[in-house]
C-alpha cells in the first residue's frame, strides 16, 4: 500500500491548476457559458495540445495509458474551477466504451478524440426508466433486411456538440451499444442548457438504419462495458466534487474572515466556525473514499463497485452539506448568480442526480 501521488501525478495536477488559474476564473467561465456550444473550443484545443485528452487511453490507441488516479487528479482540479468542457462525456464515457469494445475502427476514432477533433456522447438515460438504464425502451429491431433503431434518449451530456453517439439500446431483451453518426436520417437532436451551466441533449430515433458493424458490444459484454463506464464516470464526477468542496470551504473561510457584521469578522462566531469545520471534515472524508475507490478501480479489485456506491453516497451528502453551508455563510451573496459560490451548489446538485442519486446508491450498497 502506498498513498503518495507520484511525481508525474503531482506535475499533472500543477499543470491543470496553473491552466485554470490563468484561463478559468469566474469571469472567463461566465463568458464560456454564454457561447452557443456551452464550452470553449479554444480550451478544448489546448486540452488536446497539453495531452490531457490522451490521459486514459491505452498506448496502442495513442494514449498515455494512465489510469483512474490521473483522471481523479484532472477532475479534482476541474472541480475547483468548475470547468465545463466536455471531458467526462467525450473522453471518459465514450472513451471507456470504445476502448473496451471490439470495434474494428476504434483506434482511428480514439486518435481523433485525442487530437480534439472528434466528440462522442453516450446516450444511456431515458424519460421513464430512472436509473435502471438497462430497462431501456429504445430498441434495435430487424425491419426487412435492415436493423432499425427507434426510441428516445434523454440527458445526453454535450449531445448538441457530438459528432457521434454511443447508444444503449435493447435488442430482443438484451442490451446493445451502438455507434451512430449525429447526422443520420431519422435522428433529431435537441440541446438544452443544464442547471449547472453545461449542456445535454434529447435524441429521438425514428427508424434509424444501423449496420451491424456499428454494434460495439452486445449482451453481457455490453452490460459489463457499460457498468465499467458508469464506475469510472462516478469516480470522475466524485473527484470533481472533492475539488469543488475544497474550493467551497476555502472560499467560505476567506469570505467569513473578510465579511464584517456586528463590528467583527463573522469568522469570529463559533457557530459559523463549527459549520466550516464540518465542511472541512466532510471534504476530507470524501477525499478518503475517493482515494480508496480510485485505487480499487486501478487494481481491478472486485470490491470496487461497492466502494463506488459508498463514494457516490458520501459525495451526495457531503456535496449537499458543503454547498448549502457555503451559500448560507455567504448570506445574500451566496444566492447571487454573480458569485461563484452558488454555482458550486448547482454542480453538487447535478452531480448527485447523475448515475444514481444518494438514496439509489445507499440501496445498492445495502444490497451488496
Amino acid at each position: 500500500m502506498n498513498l503518495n501521488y507520484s511525481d508525474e501525478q503531482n506535475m499533472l495536477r500543477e499543470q491543470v491548476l496553473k491552466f485554470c488559474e490563468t484561463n478559468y476564473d469566474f469571469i472567463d467561465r461566465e463568458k464560456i457559458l454564454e457561447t452557443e456550444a456551452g464550452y470553449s473550443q479554444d480550451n478544448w484545443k489546448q486540452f488536446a495540445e497539453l495531452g490531457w485528452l490522451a490521459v486514459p487511453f491505452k498506448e496502442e490507441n495513442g494514449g498515455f495509458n494512465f489510469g483512474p488516479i490521473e483522471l481523479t487528479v484532472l477532475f479534482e482540479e476541474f472541480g475547483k474551477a468548475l470547468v465545463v468542457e466536455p471531458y467526462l462525456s467525450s473522453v471518459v464515457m465514450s472513451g471507456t466504451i470504445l476502448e473496451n469494445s471490439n470495434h474494428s475502427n476504434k483506434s482511428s476514432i480514439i486518435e481523433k478524440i485525442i487530437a480534439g477533433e472528434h466528440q462522442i456522447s453516450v446516450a444511456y438515460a431515458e424519460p421513464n426508466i430512472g436509473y435502471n438504464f438497462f430497462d431501456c425502451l429504445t430498441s434495435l429491431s430487424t425491419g426487412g433486411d435492415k436493423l432499425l433503431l427507434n426510441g428516445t434518449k434523454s440527458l445526453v451530456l454535450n449531445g448538441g456538440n457530438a459528432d457521434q453517439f454511443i447508444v444503449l439500446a435493447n435488442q430482443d431483451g438484451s442490451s446493445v451499444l451502438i455507434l451512430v453518426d449525429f447526422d443520420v436520417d431519422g435522428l433529431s437532436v435537441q440541446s438544452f442548457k443544464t442547471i449547472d451551466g453545461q449542456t445535454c441533449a434529447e435524441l429521438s430515433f425514428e427508424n434509424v438504419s444501423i449496420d451491424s458493424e456499428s454494434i460495439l458490444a452486445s449482451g453481457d459484454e455490453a452490460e459489463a462495458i457499460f457498468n465499467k463506464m458508469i464506475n469510472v464516470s462516478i469516480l470522475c464526477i466524485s473527484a470533481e466534487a472533492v475539488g469543488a468542496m475544497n474550493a467551497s470551504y476555502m472560499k467560505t473561510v476567506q469570505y467569513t474572515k473578510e465579511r464584517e457584521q456586528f463590528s467583527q469578522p463573522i469568522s469570529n462566531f463559533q457557530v459559523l466556525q463549527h459549520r466550516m469545520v464540518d465542511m472541512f471534515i466532510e471534504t476530507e472524508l470524501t477525499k478518503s473514499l475517493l482515494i480508496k475507490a480510485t485505487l480499487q478501480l486501478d487494481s481491478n479489485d472486485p470490491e470496487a463497485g461497492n466502494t463506488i456506491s459508498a463514494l457516490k453516497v458520501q459525495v451526495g451528502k457531503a456535496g449537499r452539506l458543503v454547498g448549502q453551508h457555503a451559500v448560507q455563510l455567504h448570506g445574500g451573496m451566496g444566492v447571487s448568480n454573480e458569485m461563484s459560490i452558488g454555482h458550486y451548489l448547482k454542480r453538487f446538485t447535478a452531480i448527485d442526480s447523475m448515475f444514481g442519486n444518494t438514496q439509489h446508491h445507499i440501496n445498492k450498497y445495502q444490497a451488496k
Partner: protein
Amino acid sequence: MDIGFSEQDLQFQEEIRAGLNGAEYPAHVKEKQEKGTALTKQDLIDFHKFLYSKGWMGYNWPEEYGGTGWSPVQIYLFLNELAAAQCPTILPFGLNMVGPVIYTFGTQEQKDRFLPDILEFNTWWCQGYSEPGSGSDLASLKTKAVLEGDHYIVNGSKTWTTLAQNADWIFCLVRTETTQKKQEGISFLLIDMNSPGIEVKPIITIDGDHEVNSVFFTDVKVPADQLIGEEGKGWTYAKFLLAHERFGIAGVPVVKVQIDKLKKLTADYNDADLNKKIAELEIDLEALEFTELRTLAAIAEGGHPGAESSILKIRGTEIQQRLTELYVEAAGQYILPYEGPEGFDSNRTPSGPEYASPSVAQYLNYRKTSIYGGSNEIQKNIIAKAILGV
C-alpha cells in the same frame, strides 16, 4: 381546551371556499395557477384587488383600520383555503410589514394616507432594510437621510429588495444621526419609488430568476411627513416589524398543499424511501402548524409575538427547504435541463417529469429562506437571549 371548529367557523370556511370558486375570482389568474404558469405583476394586482373586493385583504388587521378582526381560527382557515385553492401568496410588504408599523406608530394623517391604499392594493410596497454592508447586522446600515427644511435628502443603497421592480413605495431604515450606539440614530422613512434619484438594478439569483434588486438613492428628496414616529426610533419599529414578519413566514398551508402534490406526483413509483421521508416531513409540519396555532391563540389573548415567532421562522424555512430537496430527490436526474425563469419553449421541452425543472429552481431559490428576514442563525441568537435571559 377543545380542538373543534364551531358552527360559525365551518360556515366561515364555506364562505371563503365559495368565494375563491366564485365568479368574481379573476379567471386569467386561476387559469395560470392551474397550469403552473408564472404570474405577471398585473395578475398579482388583480388577485389582491379581488381579496379586497371580498373584504378579506386586512385578514390580520384590527377592524379599526379596515381589517377583518378575524379570530386566530378564522385566519388559520382563511390561509388554508387560499393555499388549497393554489392561490398566489399574499404579498407581505404592505399588509404584514409596513401596514402594522403605520397603524401602530404612524400619525393619523399617515394612517389615512397609506392604509386604505395598502388594503385596496393601490400601492405595491417593498422593503428597504438590507444594505451591501449590513445583512444580519441591520444596525450597521449606512444609508443617510439629512433633514433640509421640510425634506430629508437620502443617499445610499439598499439590496436584496424583493420585487422592487414592481414597487410604488419603499419603506426604509435610514441613518438620521451618527451616534455611538449603532441602534440609535436610525429612522423609519416611507419613500415614493418614483422620486427622482432612485435607481433599481436587478440581481439574478442562482435559480436564474429576477426577484431581488439593488436600489440606489442619490439625493432623493423625501417629505419630512413621511417619517414614521420619531427620528432615531427606527430600530424599535424595525424590531416590531421583524417579529410580525416572521409570523406567517412558516408558510404551513402552502407546504401542506405541496406535500400532497408531491405524493400525487410520485404515487406511481411507490418509492418507500421517499414516502418515509415525506411522512417525517409531514410530522414535523403537523408540529409546526399547531405551534403556529398556539402562537396565534396567545396573540389573540393579548400576547406579543416574541421568541416564539423565531421558532416559526426557523422551523418553517427548514421544512420548506427540506420539501424542495424531496422534490429534487424524486425528480432524480431529470432535474438536469435548465428551464429558466420563462419556462421551456413549448416546442422544445425535455421529456421526463414536468415538475423536475421547477423543482430544482425552487430548491436553489429557497436557499434564501434561511438567510432572509434575519438569518436562522440570528433567530437562534434571539431565542438564546430569551431563554438564557442574558
